[in-house]
């Protein structure tokens, strides 16, 4: 009996050590996320977008470096990705929401799973971006839009609500293709419809006052790139 428990003790101490290493990196990821988040928040204040994006991309590089470190730690415990996954799960969901929002600002399109992995330097080894984390991150991103459209309209960008509405509607439709379980992701997805409704309201307000440019066809055509040329 004693011998076996002695072995367990060693094994568990080892995995505890791994966990400690992971946690210290995750703390840094959290800090970088906060920097990135704070940087992205300035889009609500209509600062020049190109400057914001440049700074934000710098922070993403930092986060990427940290994820590479995590992947390096996990290399020593093959097949145990999901043993430790909970330790960086919520940070990963946050970072996905931030880089997906940033990606939309840059391109007007959705950040795909493979693109997200690439941005975070993941996917080459066993260490990947969990699909559910990615999807949860997208739900978090959606929460950012109501505030964004309100502030854009206040700043005089009357075309923004329509673009956001198209994007969020598409995203919501896409999410409805998923058979979700009764879990966290499901709850977050259920919240997305409130974002959608809020954006619809803003769009409606702008539209009935004749402020929105009447160009749904033109709007789709320049879905990419026009974010950068905003006043």
């Amino acid at each position: 009996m004693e011998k076996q428990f002695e072995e367990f003790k060693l094994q568990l101490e080892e995995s505890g050590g791994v966990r400690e290493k992971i946690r210290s990196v995750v703390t840094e990821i959290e800090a970088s996320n906060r920097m990135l988040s704070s940087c992205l928040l300035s889009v609500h204040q209509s600062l020049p977008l190109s400057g914001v994006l440049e700074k934000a991309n710098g922070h993403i590089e930092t986060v990427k470096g940290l994820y590479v470190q995590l992947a390096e730690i996990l290399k020593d415990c093959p097949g145990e990705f999901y043993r430790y996954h909970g330790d960086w799960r919520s940070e990963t969901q946050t970072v996905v929401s931030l880089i997906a929002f940033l990606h939309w600002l840059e391109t007007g399109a959705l950040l795909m799973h493979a693109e997200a992995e690439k941005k975070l330097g993941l996917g080459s080894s066993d260490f990947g971006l969990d699909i559910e984390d990615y999807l949860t991150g997208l739900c978090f991103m959606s929460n950012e839009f109501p505030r964004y459209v309100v502030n854009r309209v206040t700043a005089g960008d009357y075309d923004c609500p329509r673009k956001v509405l198209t994007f969020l509607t598409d995203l919501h439709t896409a999410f409805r293709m998923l058979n979700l379980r009764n879990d966290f992701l499901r709850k977050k997805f259920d919240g997305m419809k409130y974002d959608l409704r809020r954006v619809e309201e803003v769009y409606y307000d702008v539209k009935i006052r004749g402020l929105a440019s009447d160009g749904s066809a033109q709007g789709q055509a320049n879905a990419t790139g026009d974010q950068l040329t905003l006043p």
Partner: protein
Amino acid sequence: MTTNSTMRDEFAKHADYLNSLNEKREKVVKASRDVTMNSKKVIFQVHRISKYNKDEVLLKAENDLVAVTNQFMSKLVKELQGTDFWKLRRAYTPGVQEYIEAATFCRFCKTGTLLNLSEINSSLLALSDKSIEPLQINVLDYLLGVADVTGELMRLAIGRISDGEIEYAQKICQFVRDLYRELIVIVPLMDDNAEMKKKMEVMLQSAIKIENACFSVHVRGSEYTPLLGTDNPDFSFFGVSDFE
């Protein structure tokens, strides 16, 4: 709309992924439930032990356990083959814990020793396809199962005392104390130890119940002897009315 259709393609992939993951999880949960149910039956069989039928009862329990292994654990092992054991751990941990409990319980009654994890794992190797990485029970599930066995040992000890097998009860008592002493060192090191901490409290309670029962017999030994062998032993007599 191009954005829409690329999004749709992307989400179609994720939908497939989630569907197959959920299906797998569902199957594993089912297999795990079968293991739980049948392991419980083994435990009940062991409890049918009495002073005179020990070998017979244990033989049947052991055979039942082998059947659980071959029929139900093998199914769980097959369902889990080729998937991430840690990802689905929550789906199968109840079954595995119950199985550990049944197996260690049988082994203790047979030999008075603790069944090792490595022994269980090597028996699982035989169940699986050699080409794919086989299911190996992890330390955490093993310890959680072992912690549970002490509750059964407590019941067994009380039963043995009422049957007059005081020495057997004392042996159980010693075993449970040893286990508790070993585990108390390890628990803080375990991954997610909230569940285990609760089990440790229960374990201590079990150990105390056995000790109290042994104490009662020791102190009042001469008084209770005539009661032995009656069909309805009065457990409250031993200070263990709380029997769960």
